[in-house]
C-alpha cells in the first residue's frame, strides 16, 4: 500500500520524501492542473530536479495534468504531457479523454493514472478508461461509500487509489460547476475552486462576512472560527433555517478505515494538499507513514494512535474531520 503525498514546491517534495512518502505528486506552473494557484507548482527546470530527487531516494514522481484542455491553447496541455515525459516522470495523472488518447497513442509505455477529475465512480466507467486508454490505476472520487469501494475492488482488476486525508470535495470531482456559476472560474475551466481573487472579507459591528464575487458565503460571530469561503461550505438559508446546506467546513480523515482499505487491496492512499506548506506536508506524511507501517506490520490488531488523530485534527479545516461518504451515515 503506497503513501502518495502532495507537493506544490521542491521544499514540500523534500519534506514528503524525508518523512516517508512512497510517491509524490506535483503539477506544472500553468492551467494544466487543478491547483493552479499563484506561487505554486513546478516549471520544467524544477520538475527535472524533482524527478531526480525522488529517484535518488527510490521514490516515484507523479505529475498531475488533470484539467480539461482548452480549444484555443490545446498545445499547452500536450506540451505539459511531453515535458513531463521528457523529465522522466513515473506517472501521469490525467482526466481529459483527448489527452488520455494522446498519451496512449504517442507514449504507449507511459503509466497513466485516471485523475479523480474524470469522475469514474462505477465499473462500467472504469472498463471504458481501461479498454480505451490502458490506464493502470483509477483515483476514486470522494463520493463512494466503503462498501462501494469494496465492490469495485472485487469487480475490477485495476489498481485503485483513494483519498485518505485532506480537503473534502463533497461533489463528484470533475463535474462540479458551482465555482464557475458564482465566479466564472471552475476546476474544469481554470484549475481553481472559489478563487481567492474573488474573495472579500468585510467586518461590521464585530461580525465578519466572507463573500465570493459579492455573494455572502458566511457570517461569523466574534467567538466563531472563520474559514475560507469555499462555496459548498457556506452557511445559507433554506426555508428560514440558517445552516450549512451542503457541508460544514471539515476535512476528510480515513485513519479509522485503514485496515479495511488495506484488506481490500487498495494500492495507494492519497493525501490532498498541493497548496499546503512544506511543514504541513511533513507533519501529515509522518503520521500516515507511521499508520501505514503499523497496519502493514499487524493488520488485525491495528489501532489508531490518539496522537495521530490529534495531529491530524490540528491540521484540518475548522479542526473537524469526517469519514465523509466512506461512512453511510454521512449521506
Amino acid at each position, binding site marked *: 500500500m503506497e503513501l502518495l503525498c502532495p507537493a506544490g514546491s521542491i521544499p514540500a517534495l523534500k519534506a514528503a520524501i524525508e518523512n516517508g512518502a512512497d510517491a509524490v505528486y506535483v503539477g506544472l506552473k500553468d492551467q494544466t492542473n487543478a491547483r493552479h494557484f499563484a506561487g505554486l507548482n513546478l516549471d520544467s527546470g524544477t520538475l527535472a530536479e524533482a524527478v531526480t530527487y525522488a529517484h535518488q531516494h527510490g521514490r516515484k514522481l507523479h505529475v498531475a495534468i488533470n484539467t480539461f484542455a482548452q480549444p484555443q491553447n490545446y498545445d499547452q496541455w500536450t506540451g505539459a504531457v511531453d515535458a513531463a515525459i521528457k523529465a522522466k516522470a513515473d506517472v501521469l495523472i490525467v482526466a481529459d479523454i*483527448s489527452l488520455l488518447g494522446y498519451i496512449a497513442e504517442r507514449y504507449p509505455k507511459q503509466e497513466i493514472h485516471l485523475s479523480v477529475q474524470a469522475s469514474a465512480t462505477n465499473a462500467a466507467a472504469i472498463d471504458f478508461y481501461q479498454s480505451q486508454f490502458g490506464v493502470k490505476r483509477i483515483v476514486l472520487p470522494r463520493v463512494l461509500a466503503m462498501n462501494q469501494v469494496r465492490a469495485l475492488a472485487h469487480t475490477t482488476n485495476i489498481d485503485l487509489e483513494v483519498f485518505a486525508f485532506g480537503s473534502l470535495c463533497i461533489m463528484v470531482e470533475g463535474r462540479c460547476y458551482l465555482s464557475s456559476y458564482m465566479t466564472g472560474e471552475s476546476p474544469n475551466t481554470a484549475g481553481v475552486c472559489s478563487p481567492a481573487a474573488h474573495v472579500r472579507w468585510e467586518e461590521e459591528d464585530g461580525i465578519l462576512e466572507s463573500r465570493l464575487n459579492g*455573494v455572502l458565503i458566511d457570517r461569523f460571530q466574534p467567538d466563531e472560527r472563520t474559514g475560507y469561503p469555499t462555496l459548498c461550505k457556506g452557511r445559507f438559508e433554506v426555508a428560514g*433555517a440558517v445552516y450549512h446546506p451542503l457541508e460544514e467546513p471539515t476535512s476528510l480523515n480515513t485513519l479509522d478505515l485503514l485496515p479495511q482499505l488495506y484488506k481490500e487491496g487498495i494500492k495507494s492512499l492519497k493525501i490532498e494538499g498541493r497548496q499546503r506548506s512544506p511543514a504541513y506536508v511533513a507533519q501529515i506524511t509522518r503520521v500516515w507513514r507511521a499508520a501505514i507501517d503499523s497496519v502493514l506490520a499487524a493488520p488485525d490488531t491495528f489501532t489508531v494512535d490518539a496522537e495521530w488523530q490529534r495531529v491530524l485534527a490540528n491540521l484540518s479545516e475548522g479542526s473537524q474531520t469526517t469519514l465523509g461518504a466512506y461512512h453511510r451515515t454521512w449521506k
Partner: protein
Amino acid sequence: MKFSLGPVLYFWPKKQMQSFYQQAAESNVDIVYLGEAVCSKRRELKFDDYMDIAHMLREAGKQVCLSTMTLLEAPSELRELRRYCDNGEFLVEANDVGAIGILNDNKLPFVAGAAISIYNHHSLRRMVNLGMQRWVMPVELSGDWLGGLLNESIIQDVRDCFETELFSFGHMPLAWSARCFTARSEQRHKDQCELCCIKYPDGRVVDSQDGQRVFVLNGVQTQSGDRYNLINQLPSMRGTVDVVRLSPQSQGTFEWLHKFQQNITGAAPQPLEANDCNGYWLKLAGMVQHLD
C-alpha cells in the same frame, strides 16, 4: 433550429409526469428526453412506464431519447443502465462515461449529455468516433467556446455526423454528490429519505443570509439558484446550436417553449425575470443576468 425537452430532473408524482408528457405530445417540441437522471431511488415511473410514454410520444411525431443516470455507483444502478441501453428502439443520452462504454460495446449511437466532460475539439472528435450523434456541451461553457471549438479543422470532416444541443432554459445542474441535500434539509439521512423530494416539484431554494438566491437543492443534485434563460440569445446561436433544450419546470414550460420558438430570429424578445440568468453563454459568471 430544433427544440427539445430535457428529462424531468425533479421527482414528480406519476400522474403529473403523465400529464406533462401528454402536453409534450400535443406541443410543438421536436425531441423529448425521458428517464430518471438524478436518483435511482425515485421510482414513481419504472422503465416500462417510460417506454409506454416513449411510444406515445413517438406516435405523436416526436423524436424520443432515453436519458440515463449521471452519478452511477451501485451495481443495481448499472443493471438499470444496461436496460436503458438495451431498449432496442430509442437513442440513449449518456450522462456518465460508463454508459458510453456500454453503448460503444454494443455498437450503438448515443447523445453525450452535459455532464460528460468534453471541453475541446480533440475530445469531441474522439466521441464522434465512438458513436456520438449529438453533443450537449457542459453548461459552464460559452458561445465563444462552442464557436471556436466547432471551427477547429479536425472537426470539419465530421461536422455533419453530429448535432449540437444547448441547455438553454431551466435551473442548471451544477453538481452531484453522494449526499442527498434535500434529505439533509429535512434532517434525514439518505437511507431514510422517505423520498421527501417529491414534496418539492421545483427543488428547494437556498438563499444567502442576505437574501440572494444561491442554489436549488434537488436530491443529490445541486442546481443553479437562478433559472438559465437564453431566450434573447437565440439569434446568436445560429450556425452553432442545432437543438435548444428546455429543462422541464413544474409551471410554464410549454408557454416558454412557445416564446422561444417565436424568438428564433429575435423577432419576439422577452423581458427576463428577476431570478433569470444568462452569464455562462456570454462568457461571464453563470449567475449573472446580462441585459443587452
